[in-house]
């Protein structure tokens, strides 16, 4: 599958407290309200500028910190179709996959804010029509996670198989 979208670019060490600050703890059972605050302390225009299908691109250790699944959830609710980062914190990575949001790891230094990208999920490559020939390859997602992603997340996966399958 080829995903097409525009890049919203962030830097290194974006924590779960950046993605959805703890001061909005009381909104966790009111997801539409919670989602309005996505990334507001580091990227106040994120929620208003991102369009469905866009990509969130960042540097190293994206999503470090808390286990709050609300972090990838509000990013998904903003319309982001894939997260492309230098590296991701373990719990965030697993949470995003469980929600059916691919997290791709590669060198993101050349990707620019606002540029259009084409991501070939199965092929493992990212192309930028503006920079032909500058193809970026991303690391393989483990097989078990690919199957969860294929089903659209862990809930549909378990509904289909009834159990974990290796």
């Amino acid at each position, binding site marked *: 599958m080829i995903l097409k979208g525009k890049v919203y670019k962030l830097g290194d*060490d974006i*924590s*779960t*407290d*950046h993605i959805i*600050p*703890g*001061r909005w*703890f*009381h*909104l*966790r*059972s*009111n997801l539409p309200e919670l989602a309005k605050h996505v990334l507001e*302390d*580091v990227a106040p225009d994120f929620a208003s500028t991102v369009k469905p299908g866009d990509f969130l691109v960042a540097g*190293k*250790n994206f999503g*470090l*910190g*808390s*286990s*709050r*699944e*609300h972090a*990838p959830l509000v990013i998904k609710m903003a319309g982001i179709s894939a997260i492309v980062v230098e*590296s991701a*914190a*373990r*719990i965030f990575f*697993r*949470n995003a996959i*469980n*929600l059916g949001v691919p997290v791709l790891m590669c060198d993101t230094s050349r990707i620019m804010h606002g540029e259009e990208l084409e991501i070939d999920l199965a092929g493992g490559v990212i192309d930028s029509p503006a920079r032909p020939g500058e193809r970026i390859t991303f690391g393989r997602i*483990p*097989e*078990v996670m690919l199957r969860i992603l294929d089903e659209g*997340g*862990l*809930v549909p996966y*378990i*509904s289909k198989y009834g*159990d*974990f399958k*290796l």
Partner: protein
Amino acid sequence: MGKTLSEKILTSKSGGEARAGDIVIVQVDLAFVQDGTGPLAVRVFESSGFQQVANPNGTALFLDHAAPSPARELSNDHILLRNFARRTGVRLYEVGDGVCHQLVAESLAGPGEVIVGADSHTVTAGGLAAFATGMGSTDIAMAMALGKTWLRVPETFRIEVSGTFQRSVAAKDLILYLIGLIGADGATYKALEFGGETVDRMAMPDRLTIANMAIEAGAKVGLFPSDETTRQYLGTMGREDKYLQLAADPGAVYERTVGIDASTLEPQVSCPHTVDNTATAAQLKGTRVQQAFIGTCTNGRVEDMAIAAAILKGRKRHPDTRLIIAPASRDALQKAIAAGHIQVLLEAGAILDPAGCAACVGIHQGVLGDGEACISTANRNFHGRMGNPDSYIYLASPATAAASAITGEITDPREFL
């Protein structure tokens, strides 16, 4: 070929050979959520059509982050969790019982168990040689429903500690130093395994402090071997029957070994806004703090209250510095009262918060004002963590936090004790 602690536990719980890099399905001994992650887990559990949990005795809900609740929405989340506990027969720990990780250590965890919790500091139980790791609400909902989960067996960093700590230097300084050394993503996806003569002599509260912060280096688990100290701790908590002696095999393969000489360490502080941004307390002399916070799953045990009380005895907090104390559990609070520590701290001008997460998560009981700085014994100093993006968090040991409360600026505790 010998096995690491992770490989040993996951081999036992998966019923097959588990080696670093393998993906295994493991039986879960304990799955838990707290009030910030529990409501989503319950909704996922129920909307997936599950009605009963696989193992009610091995499932727990903790009301600790918003405790007591400061808002109607959170009170309603608590009702949702209480109703779920009533329906399914799982364990529920009420407001005021304490922080989930401290309660897991005190009353649930045992060596060799697999523990998954919807909270990143689930790693704390690694101090008791449990393979304990944090996950999100959906993963925990499925672990509750199925009694199992999948895991990638991590590669291991061996942290070999030798030497004796200097006066007023302790476990917190060691783990802050280690994170400063390897970086906040230095051990991402890896297991940290602690060993060496200093670890062999280390008391359980110190092991829990260190294991608690394994996640701050990105690690999946922070494991200690189990030994006589573990057996005695379990005995004190009334469950010696859970004891199992566990250690890595002599020929275990480590991706990296880091040696630390504890005798060379000075009191450490993590500066805003990442945990690996470390300095010594002495280097930060002159940094004003408007709040000192002693508590949390990292350093809210009775032993931590004892250290703070020893420094603050007969002294007063600085008039411009609030001193907030939050024991990590009801047991820690009661023991600190019985030992006289709480009285000493109150006489020094402290505010006593209920047992729970208190000011750590930025919800209540100590939210910082604009431009304010806090010296905290917690585990995380991220931008905005304590409820205000225009504030600054410095992480340190209870000794350093107590000394800083007296002077109103970051202070090396060796000046007092």
